[in-house]
C-alpha cells in the first residue's frame, strides 16, 4: 500500500468538503474493494474520507412499501432487518449472500453500488427493483446510474447518501459463485411489481449489470420457474474468462433466473 491520509467525516457536508479539497482523494465506505486494491498497490488515493461514521448515512426506514437504506448501512444490517424482510425478503437474502461475515459487517450498500463491480450483488437488485439512488445533490434512477464496468453516473465528488425503492409484490435472487473469489459468476434478481416484471443480471454482462428483457417477457407472460428456460440470451453480450465462458454464463443466466423465481415463490 502507498502512503495515504485517513479522514473520518462526521457529516455529509464535511465529507463532501474534504473530498473537494483533495483531488486525489477517495470516499471510503467499507473499503471491501478499495482497501484490497490499495494493498496490491493498484490504487493510490492521497486521502481516504471515511463515510461509515456519518450517522445520517446509516439506517433503514420502511414506510408502507417504501424502503430507504442509508448509503453507509452495512450489508449485515440489511440482512437482519425485520422491517425490510416483512416487505422485501429478497433484498435481505441477497445481503446475507454477500462475501463473508467480515465483509458483511464492513461493506456498505453505498460503497457497493458506487464501485459498481460487474460481479457485485446489489446492482442487480437496484436495477430490478427500479430503485432510486439518492446522492448529496440529486436523485438518479438505477436505470441511469449503472453505466458500465466500475462506471456510474456519479460526478466527481458526488456521494451516495441512500437508496430507496418500492417493495414489489414478489422478488427473488439467485447467484452462482465464482469458485475462487465467491463473487457472482452470474446473479439474477427477479421482481414482479405492479409496473411489470423486471429481471436484472450481475456478474455476466460484458458491460456490467443489465436487464434481461427476454426473460422479463417470458415471466410477464407466465410467472413460472420454467419460463426463463427458453429465453434467448446472446453470449456475445457476456463476459468470458477462465472461470466461465460466455456460453456457460448464458446458461447460468437462465438457470439462476429459474432459481430466483423459485426463491420469490
Amino acid at each position: 500500500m502507498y502512503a495515504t491520509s485517513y479522514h473520518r467525516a462526521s457529516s455529509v457536508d464535511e465529507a463532501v468538503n474534504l473530498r473537494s479539497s483533495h483531488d486525489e482523494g477517495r470516499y471510503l465506505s467499507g473499503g471491501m474493494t478499495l482497501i484490497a486494491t490499495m494493498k496490491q498497490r493498484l490504487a493510490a488515493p492521497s486521502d481516504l474520507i471515511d463515510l461509515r461514521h456519518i450517522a445520517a448515512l446509516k439506517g433503514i426506514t420502511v414506510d408502507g412499501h417504501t424502503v430507504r437504506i442509508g448509503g453507509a448501512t452495512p450489508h449485515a444490517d440489511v440482512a437482519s432487518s425485520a422491517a425490510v424482510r416483512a416487505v422485501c425478503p429478497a433484498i435481505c437474502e441477497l445481503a446475507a449472500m454477500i462475501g463473508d461475515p467480515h465483509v458483511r459487517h464492513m461493506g456498505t450498500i453505498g460503497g457497493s453500488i458506487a464501485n459498481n463491480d460487474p460481479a457485485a450483488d446489489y446492482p442487480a437488485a437496484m436495477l430490478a427493483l427500479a430503485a432510486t439512488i439518492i446522492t448529496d445533490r440529486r436523485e438518479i434512477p438505477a436505470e441511469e446510474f449503472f453505466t458500465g464496468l466500475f462506471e456510474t453516473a456519479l460526478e466527481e465528488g458526488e456521494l451516495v447518501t441512500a437508496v430507496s425503492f418500492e417493495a414489489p409484490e414478489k422478488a427473488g435472487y439467485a447467484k452462482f459463485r465464482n469458485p475462487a473469489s465467491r463473487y457472482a459468476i452470474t446473479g439474477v434478481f427477479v421482481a414482479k411489481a405492479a409496473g411489470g416484471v423486471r429481471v436484472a443480471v450481475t456478474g455476466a454482462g460484458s458491460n456490467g449489470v443489465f436487464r434481461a428483457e427476454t426473460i422479463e417477457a417470458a415471466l410477464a407472460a407466465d410467472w413460472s420457474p420454467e419460463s426463463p428456460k427458453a429465453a434467448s440470451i446472446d453470449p456475445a453480450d457476456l463476459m468470458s474468462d477462465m472461470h466461465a465462458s460466455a456460453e456457460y454464463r448464458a446458461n447460468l443466466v437462465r438457470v439462476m433466473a429459474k432459481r430466483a423465481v423459485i426463491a420469490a415463490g
Partner: protein
Amino acid sequence: MGMEGIGARVARKEDKRFLTGKGRYTDDMVVPGMKFAAFVRSPHAHAKINGIDIEAARAMPGVIDVLEGRQLQADGIGNLICGWMIHSKDGTPMKMGAWRPLAIDIVRYVGDAVAIVVADSAGEARDAAEAVVVDYEELPAVTSAVAALQPGAPQIHPEAPGNLIFDWQIGDPAATDAAIAQAAHVTEIEILNNRLSPNPMEPRATLGIYDAAEDHFTCYTTSQNPHVARLVMSAFYNVAPENKLRVIAPDVGGGFGSKIYIYPEEIVCLWASKKTGVPVKWTSDRTEAFLTDAHGRDHVSKVKMAFDKDHRIIGLKVDTIANLGAYMSLFSSAVPTYLYATLLSGQYDIPAIHANVRTVYTTTVPVDAYRGAGRPEATYLLERTMEVAARELGLSPAELRRKNFIRSFPHQTPVIMNYDAGDYDASLNAALAAADWDGFAARRAEAESRGMKRGIGMSCYIEACGIAPSQAVGSLGAGVGLWESAEVRVNAVGTIEVLTGSHSHGQGHETTFAQLIADRLGVPIASVNIVHGDTDKVQMGMGTYGSRSGAVGMSAIVKALDKVEMKAKKIAAHLMEADESDIVIENGDVKVAGTDKSLPWFQVALAAYTAHNLPSGMEPGLKETAFYDPSNFTFPAGCYIAEVEIDPETGKTEIVQFVAADDFGNIINPLIVEGQVHGGLAQGIGQALLEEVRYDEQNGQLLTASYMDYAMPRADDLPSFTLSHQNTPCPGNPLGIKGCGEAGAIGSPPALINAITDAIGINHLHMPATPLKVWSALQDGQMRQAAE
C-alpha cells in the same frame, strides 16, 4: 498406553499458543537496528537484462542500499542448485542451468529476483523497488512442458538444449512392450496432473543478521529443515561456513513442501545484512507467494495398461513429461523420478513396468515437492487407469482391483520398491462397507428423481514414506543422507527435553513426541519439552517432509531413549542394590520387579547429576544422543471412496460422502492423525475440484496470482469425512509407524474424478473438475448423443 501414552487422543500442547495468537513466527522476530527488504522482480516471463539503474531508487526516502546480482556474484555467493543427480538413459548427467540468487543477464519467470532494496520500512523499500529501472529486452515465453519440447521453442538455458533437462527411464522396456503385444486388452489413457500452488497460511519470510565482530550470521527463516538450509548455504552457496551460520526456523505456519527449499531470499538477505551492516528482514506478501513459492505437480502422461484374459495386469507403460519451471529447485529432479515412478506398481502385482520421464524447463516458477510429491501423480495415473479399465472390461472397480492386489509380503516391485507389509483387502472392504457401496444404485435413482447426477468412485493408493534409507537414496543420486537424530536430555529434577532434527510446522510434534516419552517413562507430557528448529540447539537433522517425522524422527528418539533407560536402570540398580535386569520403569517410578523397592523417576535423575553414588566408573549425567537411519521406506496404503452429486444445470459437484480407510501402521495420537488426514483430503479435493495454476501461454504472465482467481477449498466445499484405520504395523522401525501426513492428498483426487466421470457417464475429464468443465463435458456429451 496410559492417559498420555502411545495411542491416546491427547489434545495438542502447542495449540494454546497458536490459537491465542502467541505463536512466534519469523515475521514476529524483531532485533535492534532491523531494516526491511523488498525485491525488484521481473515483470516478464523471459527477458534479457540490458541494464539496471539503481540511482533513483538509492535516493528515495529511507533507503539504505540497493544491491544487485553482479555484486553478489563478485562476493563469491554461489548459484542455487538441485541436490539430487539424475542421469538420462543415455548416461549423461542432468542438464542444470544456472540459477543466480539475483538474475544478472536473463530473467526466466515472472517474479525472478533482480535486485534487493534495504530501507527503514517495508513501505519505503517497496516504493524504492518500484524506482529501480531495469532495461529488459523481452524474449519469447513458453509455459507448458509439451510446448517447450517442440522444435523452435524458446531456448531457456544454454546448458539444456531443447529445454530437456533429462530423459530418464525405470523398469524393463522390452518386457513391458512384450506384455502389451500379447495382451488380451490394453487400456490407454492420457493423464494431466494439474499444477498447484502450495499456499501455506504463513507466507515465506526471512531475517538475516550479520555480526561483524564475530563474523557470524544468523538466519531466521520459514523452513521445514533448518539444518539442511545451513548445510546447503554453507556447502554450495558460500554464504558462511557452518560454524559461522546459525539457522532458526521458529514457529512455521505450514509448508506442504514449499518450505523445504532454500530460496534466493534467504541467501540474499544474509549477504545484504553483511553488505549494509544492518539486520535485513523480508516477508513475502500473498502475491509474491503465488509468484515465487515452488509449485507442485504439472505432469502430462500417456499410459498403456495391459491385461491378460483373466483381467490380471501383465504390463504398464508410462510416458511422462514433467514441467520443472525456470530453474531446478533443490529436490525437483527426485520428484518426477524416484518419488513418482517407483510407486507405479500401486497395490498391484504387475510383472512388467516401464516408465520414461522427460523433465523440461519452461518460463514459469520452479516446480518441486508439494504434499505427496510424485506419489499423488503416480496414484492419480494408476487409479484413473484402473477405473477406465474396469469400465472397459465390464468389471466393478473393486473386483478389478481385488484380482490384482499384492497379498504376500515382502513384495518386490519391478520399480525398486520392496513393500514390507500391508493388507489391501482390509482397507477396500472397510471402505466399501463404510460407504455402503452396495446401496449406491438406490441412492443414484433417488438423486435422479431430483434431477441430480450421482456417481461413486474409488482409489486404492500406496505411498512410500519414512524417507529414507541413506545408502539407498545415495545410490540413486541424492546429495544427502536421510536419517534423523535425537537427543533425550533428562534434567536433574527428572523433567525431559527432547532435541529433534525433525521440524514441526503444523504436525503436532510437541505433543506426539512427548507422548512417546510419557509412554516409556510414565512421566506426564507436561514435563517433556520438544526442542527443534534451531541449529545452535539441535545437533543435526534432516527436517520434516515425506511423512518422515514419525517413522524416522521418532525412531531416533526411541534409540536415544533406549540408551537413557539403560543408564537409568544401572543407576537405580546400584541405588537399590538390585540386579539391573530386575529393574522396570512403571508410571514414573523405577522399581525392582517383584519387590516393594521403588524410586521415583526424579530421584534417579537427580542421582545421575549429583553423582554422589553412581556405579563405579559411570560418567555423571543422563543425556543420550542417537542417529537413526531407516532400513527401508514405509508403505502406508488405503482405499478412498468418494460419492458425488452433480447439478447438471450448473455443472457444480457436491461431495455427498467421502470415506477414507487407511493403513498407517501403529498410531501415536489418533486425534492428530485424523487432523492430518482431514488436511490432506482438503488439499486433494482442492486439486481435484478447484485448484489450478494458470499461466498465459503467450506471455507467461501468472493468471492465478491471487485468491480472486486461484480457488482454495473452503469448509463448505468439503463434506464430513468418514475415517477408519486397518493398521498393519510396519516391521521396519521400532514403533511400527508408517506415516500419515500425505495420504489424504495422494489418495483423494482419483477417487473424486472417478466418481465424477461415473456420474456424468464420460471416461475422460481433467482436473480440476470445475463447474465450467463439468457442464461443458455434459454439453459435449449431449451433442455427441444428438449426433449419433
